[in-house]
């Protein structure tokens, strides 16, 4: 229809004019112009229904005004559009995904950051030597090829990797950043990942200057790394944001405020941070200078809401204000079922354990007591009802089932028997424990967080241990920082702990219970375990390494250093318009590098049988 297409053309022209002319107002009103309507969104009613060839203008301050092509004549439509265009409008780019995050990233200095939200942002705006692909595999990032040897590694950088100010990313940028990480003055909490580099630990302890770190720039495009000990999983290590490059002259020009605001950062990743309103919102825009910018389909990632209330985030999703929700808990998933919100599941696989305190004087240092607790624990009912997330699975060992071994999954190559409950046996072990502990078992202190889920788990175990074994458990609920403090001080009997892996290799889990590891909150000590881990750390032969680690794990599990509970899973929400969001077990999660908005609704036909 002639009139309709004129209107559409005019609207489109206006739209592109506006897009070029006006900047986004800070954290405030936005208006969108859509030249065509979307077909009705599934999952219930759509607030934005319309018929084809209807131009819709939507300004958040004014509401929707429908401009039907049938009733508007040429001149009037121009005037109307011109009138509306004088309002502060920014045309919404089609390819925009909106998210909410739980807390403001404390900082975006890659040499110091150590929390999930920073990792998410940094994973999109910065890129290191390698990057995670759509299938969780490591792909070339700034480095286009490499070889990893027993004593070190060489990386050859690509020529078209650029910073957001146009200058190329060079090997010197990596050297500067890595030295910064281990420098004791930086006090980086993630410096330990560099201990596999030569002198890394010594530098961090202040014994050597930072220039002695085992990394050097042979030339602008070649990076040479020297190891302290063999590191076959080094490629996984350099994918951690801590290993991202930082340009020295820019860093120094910021005078200590590197990473404070978007202008205090340089970006070499698929997106740039264009806007950061602390505690309020962030905006990531496409980086046109990214070497693989062709593969990035999104124009913008908006993070307009920062809140750690799960119900608020669910409301935002329902409202259409956000398109993605990273994880919802048991109660929220029930609500999502009732409200027919599109759910997906992701077996994230981080292991959760019951850590026992092995320090002398603690009841849990007694092996029979630990065995009794393990035999009284029924993983099936716990995971299904108390955890309540489908996809969570019982854990058999310290190393989760998905971790890579030599050729297949580590668990496949080195299986462990599943832990099964046995109440009679449990009671027998308890009796032995009681005798060894002098006739009476004192109440056990159970350290847990304040979230609803942790409280439920603790109360479930409290009752089960009381009912089945007659053990008294005192629940010690603490805020996050207090939990950490108490764990470090050993002020607990049982604590629920998890471990988020840094790289895909059993070592990231296996060294958790070595006596030198500060994360070994229960102070489990076994000389054989330590020896096996040490051997694996300097072993070059992959098969031997894996079997060393497997033997160490078996020792720890048989002694019940910890009680493996389950491997984590998420149920999450993703709007049907958004496709291509990848979930990673390791790496930036979610990964929106290859995400896109698809206006055609996937049509789902279902055929009922029976």
């Amino acid at each position, binding site marked *: 229809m002639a009139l309709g297409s004129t209107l559409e053309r005019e609207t489109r022209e206006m739209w592109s004019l506006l897009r070029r002319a006006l900047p986004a107002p800070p954290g405030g009103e936005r208006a969108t112009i859509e030249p065509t309507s979307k077909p009705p969104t599934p999952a219930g009613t759509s607030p934005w229904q319309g018929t084809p060839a209807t131009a819709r203008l*939507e300004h958040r301050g004014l509401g929707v005004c429908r401009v039907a092509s049938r009733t508007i004549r040429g001149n009037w439509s121009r005037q109307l559009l011109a009138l509306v265009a004088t309002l502060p409008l920014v045309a919404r780019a089609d390819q925009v995904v909106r998210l909410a995050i739980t807390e403001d990233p*404390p*900082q975006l200095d890659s040499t110091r950051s150590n929390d999930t939200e920073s990792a998410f942002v940094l994973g999109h705006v910065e890129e290191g030597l390698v990057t995670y692909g759509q299938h969780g595999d490591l792909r070339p990032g700034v480095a286009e090829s490499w070889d990893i040897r027993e004593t070190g590694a060489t990386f050859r950088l690509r020529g078209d990797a650029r910073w957001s100010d146009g200058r190329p990313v060079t090997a010197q940028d990596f050297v500067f950043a890595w030295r910064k990480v281990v420098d004791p003055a930086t*006090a980086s909490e993630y410096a330990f990942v560099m201990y596999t580099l030569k002198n890394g630990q010594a530098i961090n302890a202040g014994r050597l200057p930072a220039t002695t770190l085992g990394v050097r720039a042979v030339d602008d495009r070649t990076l040479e790394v020297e190891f302290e000990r063999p590191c076959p999983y080094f490629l996984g290590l350099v994918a951690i944001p801590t290993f991202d490059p930082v340009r020295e002259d820019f860093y120094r020009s910021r005078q200590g405020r590197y990473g404070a605001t978007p202008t205090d950062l340089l970006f070499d990743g698929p997106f740039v941070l264009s806007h950061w309103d602390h*505690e309020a919102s962030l905006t990531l825009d496409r980086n046109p200078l990214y070497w693989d910018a062709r593969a990035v389909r999104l124009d913008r990632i908006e993070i307009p809401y920062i809140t750690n209330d799960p119900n608020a985030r669910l409301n935002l999703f329902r*409202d259409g204000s956000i398109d993605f929700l990273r994880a919802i808990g048991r109660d929220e998933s029930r609500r999502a079922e009732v409200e027919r919100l599109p759910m997906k599941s992701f077996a994230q696989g981080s292991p959760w354990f019951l850590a026992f305190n092995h320090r002398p004087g603690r009841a849990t240092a007694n092996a029979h007591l630990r065995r009794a607790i393990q035999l009284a624990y029924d993983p099936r009912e716990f995971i299904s009802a108390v955890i309540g997330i489908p996809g969570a699975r019982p854990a058999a060992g310290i190393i989760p089932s998905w971790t890579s071994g030599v050729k297949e999954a580590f668990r496949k190559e080195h299986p462990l028997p599943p832990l099964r409950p046995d109440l009679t046996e449990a009671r027998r072990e308890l009796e032995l424990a009681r005798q060894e502990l002098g006739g009476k078992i004192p109440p056990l202190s159970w350290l847990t967080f304040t979230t609803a889920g942790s409280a439920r788990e603790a109360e479930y175990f409290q009752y089960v241990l009381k009912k089945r074994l007659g053990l008294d458990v005192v629940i010690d609920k603490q805020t996050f*920082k207090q939990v950490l403090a108490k764990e470090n001080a050993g002020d607990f009997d049982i604590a629920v702990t998890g471990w*988020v892996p840094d790289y895909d290799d059993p070592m990231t889990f296996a060294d958790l219970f070595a006596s030198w590891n500060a994360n070994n909150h229960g102070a489990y000590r076994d000389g054989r375990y330590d020896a096996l881990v040490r051997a694996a750390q300097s072993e070059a032969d992959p098969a031997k390494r894996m079997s060393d680690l497997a033997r160490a794990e078996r020792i720890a599990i048989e002694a019940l250093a910890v009680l493996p509970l389950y491997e984590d899973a998420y149920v999450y929400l993703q709007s049907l318009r958004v496709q291509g969001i990848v979930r990673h077990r390791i790496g930036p999660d979610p990964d929106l590098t290859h995400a896109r908005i698809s206006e055609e609704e996937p049509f789902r036909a279902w055929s009922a049988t029976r």
Partner: protein
Amino acid sequence: MVRYTLKRLATGLVTVYFIATATFVAMHAVPGDPLAGAKARTAEIQRNLRRRYGLDRPVLVQYGVFLENAVRGDFGISFTQPNRSVNDIIRHHFPVSAELGLLSLLFATAGGILFGAVTARAHGRLADRTVLFLVILGISVPSFAFAGLGQYLMVDLNRAVGFEVLPVAGWGSFRHMLMPALVLGLGTMAFFTRLMRSSLLEVVHQDYIRTARAKGLPWARIFLAHELRNAILPMLSYLGPAIAAITTGGFVVETVFAIPGLGRYFVQAFQQLDYTVIMGLTVFYGSFLVLMVIATDVVYALVDPRISLIGERS
């Protein structure tokens, strides 16, 4: 009057000093390590961190450093967000909380006076009982329930109507403020309603009101010039702390509506044991509160001629 205010300000400073000291002591006495992270660190990293934040010095020295800097108005850098100074944080987030708090206080005061007057007038009758019931319901349902429910209903409303009547969360325009301010002010509105009702009931039976009515003064004049002026005093004495509490204490509302305010920051700082932010915010909040209390007392004395400022026996 001026002398009195100056004297109060001076003592206020002393009060703030005591607040700061008490908080400092409490903060260091409470168990927990502000620098503990999710992944425990090696001894080297621990040492480096403590040195960087000045926690390796004896507590008394830390106290001295804190006082010295506080006098100059420098509260240091946040532990959890190392690129933001505490002053920046206050400067950035306090206006948000203040706007929200003032609007909600406006709701609360207006609503309190209105409903208080209505129920006092309709004493014992249906309107009184209904409002009483609503008030009780309002205060016995916790604030997070109102916030959550309010937000949920907003979503439903937006979907039903087809466009965004009110934003579900966020901050930036006047429309963003309406729902959160209403929710935040509800509790205080209920309190003010009852307070107004109670004191209006006492005032209404006074002789001078009867005289004014007998004189044939218009109802509005009686209400505004006589009844309100006398009945508002209890509310006034509560207004000072209420202002301070509401502008900094809207933690639940700020969390549910994703508002970047100080209330949320306050609670988070305590949970994370962010020493500098705790100290800075406490001193700020304490000063603000003391200021509000002084202002309230002055206004109180201005409004009621029977009360002399110094509080001396007449």
